[in-house]
């Protein structure tokens, strides 16, 4: 038996979520009294691979194959399911991000394994195997029993702390046979964001709503974000109006994020907006209306005009950094 965890890298470096995933997998393995095997697909060197051992991965399967250069969900799930069988995995852990959402359901069918998606805590119970998962866009959480022999869990990003439990990991290089007929995804163009803090990875997010009044008013918000090392986000009407790019839209129909700190400026706090940000550890609201529902979700609030509060806050951050 083992716990299998699928890790992801970005240009050869593991994403933070990979360490979260391995920390989580180690927690599950402890409960089951077994070991953790991590899978890495892509060009990652040995020094980087071995870092997974810091979080408890006992074995690291390293696959660097040209055939897997493009995410093809069919090919990826075929490779991972083979490894799961070989490693006799009873629990498989994957991120609940775009990549994970592409792979997990296909893996589920290949292994006849029930999926608990968007888990944010260790399993509540082993017998029956019960996980705690987000439902109703964060308005409720469910205890979900997974009845199949193999279980697949997709972990919500930023929901599980990194836990260092160093072990001496062994690296196994693998060259899996890949059925060419499965490789059907052809890439025509790639537009990668670079040099920016990814919204879904960010520890701090500064977000603006309709209360920012116009596209021209974003300067101070972006400045505050830069000073805090934060990513920028917005509410839906803001991206609909074209004040900010679409990939900044958070909420039910946008990105779902869980930073340590979410600063909402001029955002009313509609249910659909909260659906995307309610898992943030701390929420700060800046709003001119003391009755805005965002203050019910926030731990810290400033009542005031964003255009007056932001410059003062920026000055205070600069002062603090001195």
């Amino acid at each position, binding site marked *: 038996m083992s716990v299998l965890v699928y890790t992801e890298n970005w240009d050869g470096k593991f994403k933070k979520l990979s360490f979260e995933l391995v920390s989580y997998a180690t927690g599950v393995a402890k409960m089951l009294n077994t070991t953790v095997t991590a899978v890495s697909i892509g060009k990652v060197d040995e020094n980087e691979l071995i870092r997974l051992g810091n979080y408890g991965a006992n074995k690291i399967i390293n696959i660097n194959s040209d055939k897997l250069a493009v995410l093809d969900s069919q090919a990826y799930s075929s490779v991972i399911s083979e490894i799961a069988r070989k490693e006799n995995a009873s629990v498989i852990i994957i991120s609940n991000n775009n990549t994970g959402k592409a792979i997990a359901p296909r893996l589920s069918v290949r292994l006849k394994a029930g999926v608990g998606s968007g888990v944010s805590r260790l399993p509540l119970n082993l017998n029956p195997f019960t996980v705690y998962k987000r439902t109703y866009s964060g308005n409720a959480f469910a205890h979900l029993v997974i009845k199949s022999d193999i279980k697949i869990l997709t972990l919500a990003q930023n929901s599980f702390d990194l836990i260092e439990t160093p072990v001496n990991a062994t690296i196994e290089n693998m060259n899996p046979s890949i059925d060419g007929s499965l490789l059907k995804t052809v890439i025509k163009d790639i537009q990668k964001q670079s040099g920016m803090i990814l919204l879904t990875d960010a520890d701090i997010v500064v977000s603006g709503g309709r209360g920012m009044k116009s596209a021209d008013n974003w300067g101070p918000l972006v400045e505050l974000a830069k000073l805090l090392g934060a990513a920028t986000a917005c509410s839906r009407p803001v991206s609909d109006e074209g004040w900010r790019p679409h990939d900044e839209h958070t909420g039910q129909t946008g990105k779902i994020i869980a930073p340590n700190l979410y600063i909402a400026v001029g955002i009313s706090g509609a249910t659909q907006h909260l659906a995307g940000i309610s898992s943030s550890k*701390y929420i700060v609201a800046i709003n001119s209306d003391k009755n805005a529902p965002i203050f019910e979700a926030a731990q810290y609030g*400033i009542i005031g005009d964003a255009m007056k509060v932001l410059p003062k806050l920026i000055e205070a951050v600069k002062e603090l950094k001195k």
Partner: protein
Amino acid sequence: MKILVCISNVPDTTTKIKFAEGNTSVDTTGIQWVINPWDELSLTRALELKDDTTSGIKSVTVIHVGPAASEPTIRKALAIGADDAIRVNAVSSDAWFVAAQIAEVIKKEQFDVIMCGIESSDYNGSIVGGMISEFLGIPSVSAVSGIKFENGQAIIIREIDGGKEVVSVPVPFVAIVQKGIAKEPRIAAMRGIMMARSKPVKLVEPVQVDPLTQIVEFEKPTPRAACKFIDADSPALLLDLLQNEAKVI
């Protein structure tokens, strides 16, 4: 080519969720049911493709796994513009069950493009679309924010974590769609509502499938501490709290 759009029936997104039967189920009294927001956008894009005579898309069918009580949601999809509908007559028990039922229907009736939303707003599973594709052994593209056809070939934009890719896969395939796929959901016009009454809804009996998962209990999110208000003129106090109390900066 024919498109099949998978439709889930969910509580309106502003619903205050309450539980029933000792927190084992959701209290459905007074709930307003709607087409899952993603599915509504996916249907909208499917209809736009059909309207575009160069796309090669000739028809749009919607499918729903659910009891007769969810018929109004199917009628709404027909009123928006779907040509016909299929209802698998079963109470959906989990994603595995739903995906298996839909895959079974697709095996019998040919579709070239199957569209699913990235998640349903009730169970937030993000799994049905991918499962359907694996049950059928056909390609799937996830996090799709754009789709068009050029010379019979699908050109698909998918969101990756940290960017976008333009990809192509041969038909038949499953497109799992998200934000960006269509601008605004199409709204049913009076004529559409009238026409929907006479559009065919095919009833299919479910195949035997045992669900793999079951929700045994619901709970409310952990309540947060009440908001501490800080005077607009003392932002340094906020930073102090964030640094020393919350420890997040």
